[in-house]
């Protein structure tokens, strides 16, 4: 191809693209009032793709269930990848709102919501965000589907700080150098009034060295604020080096990702006696059954949240955005798979919490734990 044809070829390509975009999607701001168009903006590639894929699976299951329960309803979804990155997320957001003209967006990524929240507020469509929103949290059309870091982690920190069976030991706190877990760690730091040593994980290799350090340093208690697989790897490595496990305390990530944790650790009986944060969940067994039937595996990390997000959105639907938003603010479902669902004044989820103990390899809720 001769050089002089390149530039005109590119120009023609660009014009074609613009044409395609506009003819494909012009004026389709939901011309059919009884159909709902949801935008699902998830990290499907990159470091958080495992979580994104899980959430997508939970969402697809919820859509299946909804369609079965409401035959004749018309729900379409547009799925875009934001790779847990602000630039990709802004691009995806613009495409979803400008080209696809979705009625609502369900998403996970914290950096993305932090970048787009002003535009979202202007647009008025309800946006349900799973991850933490760190800036601009207010009474608006953005709903955070996980509780603010303060709530569950603060609860855990105060609980542990009140238990001499825990704090009298040498305490290590292990967390990832990522935005979500850093927020959790800060919440822990603010609420745990006793001494501890932090261990920051940058890559999986660190876990092995930290396990050695923890075992050798005679740490009697470890707070694990980690993704389920990293938590499992850490537990595995500690077990290898030191057969007397320290007392482990997990944050709520363990509960939603217990299947993943078990898959990596192998035998969850090895950590009997460990403590975990727990959100009182609803019809979990039914969810697990359906998930297994549809996908052939146990529901993994965050699948339950994905399921609930779709239900929350669809059960409060109204074709008027302001009404839909107001319905969401008032929404309450004590039987959400990920736990009871309701929002506080700023649209942040409130979840009743309790402490669980691992007995016989399973999470068993308990009100009193003797450490």
């Amino acid at each position, binding site marked *: *191809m001769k050089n002089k044809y390149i530039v005109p070829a*590119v120009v023609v390509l660009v014009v074609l693209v613009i044409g395609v975009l506009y003819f494909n999607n012009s004026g389709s701001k939901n011309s059919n009032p009884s159909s709902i168009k949801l935008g699902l903006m998830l990290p499907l590639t990159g470091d958080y793709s495992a979580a994104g894929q899980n959430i997508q699976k939970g969402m697809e299951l919820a859509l299946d269930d909804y369609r079965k329960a409401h035959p004749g309803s018309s729900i379409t979804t547009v799925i875009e990848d934001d790779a847990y*990155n602000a630039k990709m997320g802004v691009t995806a957001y613009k495409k979803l709102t400008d080209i696809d003209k979705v009625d609502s967006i369900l998403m996970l990524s914290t950096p993305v919501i932090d970048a787009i929240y002003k535009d979202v507020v202007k647009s008025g469509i309800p946006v349900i965000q799973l991850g933490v929103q760190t800036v601009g949290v207010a009474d608006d059309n953005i709903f955070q589907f996980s509780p603010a870091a303060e709530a569950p982690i603060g609860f855990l920190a105060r609980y542990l700080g009140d238990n001499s069976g825990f704090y009298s030991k040498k305490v290590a706190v292990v967390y990832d150098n990522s935005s979500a877990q850093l927020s959790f760690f800060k919440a822990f730091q603010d609420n745990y009034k006793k001494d501890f040593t932090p261990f920051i994980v940058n890559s999986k290799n660190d876990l092995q060295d930290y396990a050695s350090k923890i075992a050798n340093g005679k740490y009697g208690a470890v707070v694990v604020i980690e993704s389920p697989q990293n938590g499992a790897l850490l537990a595995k490595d500690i077990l290898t080096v030191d057969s007397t496990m320290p007392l482990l305390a997990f944050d709520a990530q363990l509960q939603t990702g217990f299947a993943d944790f078990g898959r990596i650790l192998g035998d969850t009986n090895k950590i009997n006696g460990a403590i975990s944060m727990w959100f009182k969940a609803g019809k979990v067994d039914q969810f697990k059954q359906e998930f297994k039937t549809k996908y052939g595996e146990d529901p993994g990390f965050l699948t339950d949240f994905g399921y609930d997000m779709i239900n929350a959105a669809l059960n409060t639907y109204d074709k008027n955005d302001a009404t839909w938003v107001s319905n969401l603010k008032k929404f309450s479902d004590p039987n959400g798979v990920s736990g009871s669902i309701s929002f506080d004044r700023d649209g942040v989820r409130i979840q009743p919490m309790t402490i669980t103990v691992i007995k016989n390899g399973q999470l068993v809720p308990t009100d009193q734990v003797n450490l």
Partner: protein
Amino acid sequence: MEYLIHIAILISIYGILGLSLNLVVGFTGLLSITQAAFYGIGAYTTAILLTGTGMNFFLAMILGMVISGVCSLAIGFVLSKFKDDYYALGSFGFNVIIYSIFLNWQSLTRGPLGIPGIPRPSLFGFTFSENIWFLLLSIIFLILVYFVCRFITGSSFGRVLKSIREDEEAISVFGYRTLWYKLAIFVISAMMASIAGSLFASYITFIDPSSFTLSESIFILAIIILGGLANNKGAMIGAACLILLPEILRFVGFPDDIAAQMRQVTYGVILILLMLYRPQGLVGEYKL
């Protein structure tokens, strides 16, 4: 139109990045894979100054260029001690080191939490909050950078750079202090990348370290190789293509459950095909 304006802004920003890297890689022949570091320094300086002190955007941009310039002077000096492939590796190394600083100097950069709420530029009371005005601003900077690059590469300074690329020993025999030229162009390139960073930070309003990784540097390199090394127009066309390609792929009907990954596969395959069938780049002059 919002979506298209957004794409156009991204193309302008990456166009500036491509032009800046082209000066070092295409014209001078130095395989530098650390452009994202200077991009990041510009972005972080702007972000920190704008959110922390409310300084004017353009002033912050200039400060970003200064800091980028100083860092690149030091880095360029160390890199100049390396030959050929080791140069590339050393530059990788600096990218990783600077990325680590963004990630771990949390009292300054807030680490993985990133810096949100970066305001848009304002000048004499006018704020570039509408995206269409920001696009105009980006295009103006792109054009400025383009003309500076054209000037540099067309001048006698540029001829020395090309000679360094072709045969450094020969030209140093003639009395040209090649180190000075290499450092100068490296610094200029870093300052331009910093401009792109400032624009990026203010446009997206949120930055975190994940935008300035080694992969980003590799992406910028791919832009100029695709567009055609040592060709200023090529750098901009390369940016346009590599930004547009994934966007076009959004509209290809892959099945939902594997769409995102299929787009990656297609992207990878297209890169391979482009290298197989057009290795000199879309408008390349420098026959590789």
